[in-house]
């Protein structure tokens, strides 16, 4: 639809307003005020809905159907003018708006009638209404308020006119019921977005039909409603149609917002299935499918079903997504009438998929970094073990042998040369001290006791060497993977070293617990507290070491209340 269409619709609406003013002001006596307001509101609401339809669904004919209904509602007002010609014309089209409303309902939401039957039905509806009006024009005896006579009047006869009214009732009821039945059938057959936009129509059509039935019966029977209520107020129910459309337009804007919100609300790394569900809910199309190209060239949706985007099925349409995933959205074809919503949905889906892909990449890289960090720590531990063993097998052995040799030399020299014996004893002492220092160095590089006796023995050794009296509350005797034992050992070692250096504690407590899948090491003291994780490189390094094993290091050290350090390490 072109911009010219919009201009024409707007011009038509302005003209209709001017027309309504003329037919209100000119007639004497003036029309009833309530009716003027009611009829103006109804007619103009349809014209406004026509303009809204042109803006929202420019590819459909709904704008014309709304506008025609509005014109056919307003045009009979020309009958208020004091001219026989206008009076006769108004009489012919006085009920044509009901056919226009039925046409609109049958063509909803695309503006096109779905079958030859429906096209015939619409023709019959227009013909039936105009035909009945012709009958009235031929035989109605005229009104009591001094209105002009119909130019088509053949034989004024109240009896014939009443007979036409009475006999028209079954036909009108049949046609109305048929229209309602077709609309309900449309709703039943609709899926996804179509059903979403058809649901309010069913309710409105039911209400309008009810009004029509009441008005028809009121012409022929005595109903307990006032004429004013039925003829002047009840027609306001017709505004429901345009109002529904305006509301659904607002909801469509809300749907576009909902798509954005759905993407924002998606948890990071959500599955494509979750993405589909969120989008389907946001756009109101429960049949929405999200499908991905497979290595074999085919497509599979989020439930694992294979499908062909090139032929998505009757009433379905395919929208490709941008990005490297070669994904497509398959949705109700009528959703194409909301092009902005489809574009936004496709963009949102592409964005979410790209986000998931990037997150998966980052996650994979993070896993690689974690694994690499763990390998680096293990390699470091392995190298420390090798160094300690080399010192033990090499330098320490040689120093031991040297000590023994010096001891023998001292014994031999002492008998012959006491001075030499004393000198050798001095050398022997130096050798023993060198050996002691080398042992400490080797132990610092890697504790042999950890390899020899496991965590229980190693922690026992640490507790025994600690200058602050240390109690071991519990330590499992079992062996754990070397990397975990080493991490737990260094936690206890560093913590007890800190207790000795900084805490001014009188005692310390060590516990190692093994809840399912974890190893929890706790070292606490009764010292001054006030330690922070960032204090010194020791605790920071320890935190890194625990993190490398996939664990967490927590330090609680309120001033004056001691320090509690806990390492929670995953343990298979």
């Amino acid at each position, binding site marked *: 639809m072109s911009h010219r269409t919009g201009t024409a619709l707007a011009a038509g609406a302005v003209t209709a307003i001017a027309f309504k003013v003329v037919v209100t002001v000119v007639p004497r006596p003036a029309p009833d005020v309530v009716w003027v307001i009611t009829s103006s509101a109804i007619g103009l609401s349809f014209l406004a809905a026509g303009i809204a339809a042109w803006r929202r669904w420019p590819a459909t004919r709904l704008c014309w159907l709304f506008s025609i209904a509005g014109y056919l509602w307003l045009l009979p007002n020309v009958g208020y003018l004091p001219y026989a010609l206008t009076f006769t014309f108004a009489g012919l089209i006085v009920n044509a708006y009901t056919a226009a409303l039925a046409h609109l309902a049958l063509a909803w939401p695309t503006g096109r009638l779905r079958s030859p039957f429906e096209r015939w039905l619409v023709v019959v509806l227009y013909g039936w209404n105009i035909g009945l009006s012709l009958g009235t024009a031929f035989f109605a005896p005229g009104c009591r308020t001094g209105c002009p006579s119909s130019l088509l009047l053949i034989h004024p006869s109240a009896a014939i006119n009443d007979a036409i009214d009475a006999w028209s009732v079954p036909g009108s009821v049949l046609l109305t019921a048929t229209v309602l039945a077709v609309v309900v059938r449309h709703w039943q057959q609709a899926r996804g977005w179509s059903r979403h936009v058809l649901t309010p129509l069913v309710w409105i059509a039911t209400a309008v039909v009810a009004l029509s039935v009441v008005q028809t019966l009121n012409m022929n029977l005595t109903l307990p409603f006032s004429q004013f209520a039925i003829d002047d107020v009840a027609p306001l129910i017709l505004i429901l149609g345009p109002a529904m459309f305006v509301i659904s337009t607002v909801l469509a804007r809300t749907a576009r917002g909902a798509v954005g919100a759905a993407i924002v609300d998606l948890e990071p790394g959500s599955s494509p299935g979750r993405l589909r569900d969120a989008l389907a809910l946001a756009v109101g199309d429960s049949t929405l499918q999200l499908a991905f190209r497979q290595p074999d060239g085919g497509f599979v949706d989020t439930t694992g079903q294979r499908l062909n985007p090139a032929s998505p099925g009757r009433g379905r349409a395919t929208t490709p997504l941008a990005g490297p995933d070669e994904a497509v959205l398959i949705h109700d074809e009528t959703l194409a009438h909301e092009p902005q919503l489809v574009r936004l949905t496709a963009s949102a889906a592409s964005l979410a998929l790209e986000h998931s892909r990037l997150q998966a990449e980052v996650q994979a890289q993070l896993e690689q970094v974690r694994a690499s960090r763990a390998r680096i720590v293990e390699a470091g531990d392995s190298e420390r073990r090798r160094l300690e063993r080399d010192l033990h097998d090499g330098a320490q*052995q*040689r120093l*031991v042998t040297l000590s023994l040799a010096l001891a*023998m030399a001292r014994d031999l020299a002492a008998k012959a040369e006491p001075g030499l014996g004393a000198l050798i004893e001095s050398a022997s002492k130096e050798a*023993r001290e060198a050996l002691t220092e080398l*042992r400490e160095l080797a132990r610092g590089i890697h504790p042999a*006791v950890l390899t020899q006796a496991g965590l229980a023995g190693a922690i026992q*050794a640490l507790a025994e060497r600690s200058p602050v009296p240390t109690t071991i509350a519990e330590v499992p005797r079992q062996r754990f993977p070397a990397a975990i034992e080493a991490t737990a050992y260094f936690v206890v070692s560093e913590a007890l070293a800190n207790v000795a250096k900084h805490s001014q504690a009188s005692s310390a407590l060590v516990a190692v617990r093994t809840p399912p899948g974890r190893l929890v090491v706790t070292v606490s003291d009764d010292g001054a507290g006030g330690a922070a994780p960032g204090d010194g490189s020791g605790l920071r390094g320890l935190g890194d070491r625990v993190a490398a094993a996939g664990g967490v290091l927590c330090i609680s050290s309120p001033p004056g209340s001691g320090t509690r350090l806990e390492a929670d390490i995953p343990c298979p």
Partner: protein
Amino acid sequence: MEPSAAILIVDDHDGFRAFARAMLEAAGFTVAEASTGAEATTAAAAVRPRLVLLDIQLPDSDGFEVARRLSAQADSPVVVLTSTREASDYGGRIASSPAAAFLPKDQLSGAALRRFLPQDPG
């Protein structure tokens, strides 16, 4: 292996064995040597030493396992574990082994070993 040997030195380090042998022989002991756990078991059965000075770190098995095997023999010898490391480097393993004592290598002497043989100083 001398049938009358009183002490069996089990250590894979040649230099240590040589100096230990010299030191202990100078102290009056008869000494035999083995460099692996398997040799130690065989030598102990053949030589029947009064005392075995057993290095914990051996190439084919550790000293604790060899101590268990030696203790299982009839008329088992006194086993003294030794190492360049300290006893604390082995946690509670020394205490739970059948060995009679632990002697750091650098503290080896005839007098030190004689303390573990109170019944027969020679």
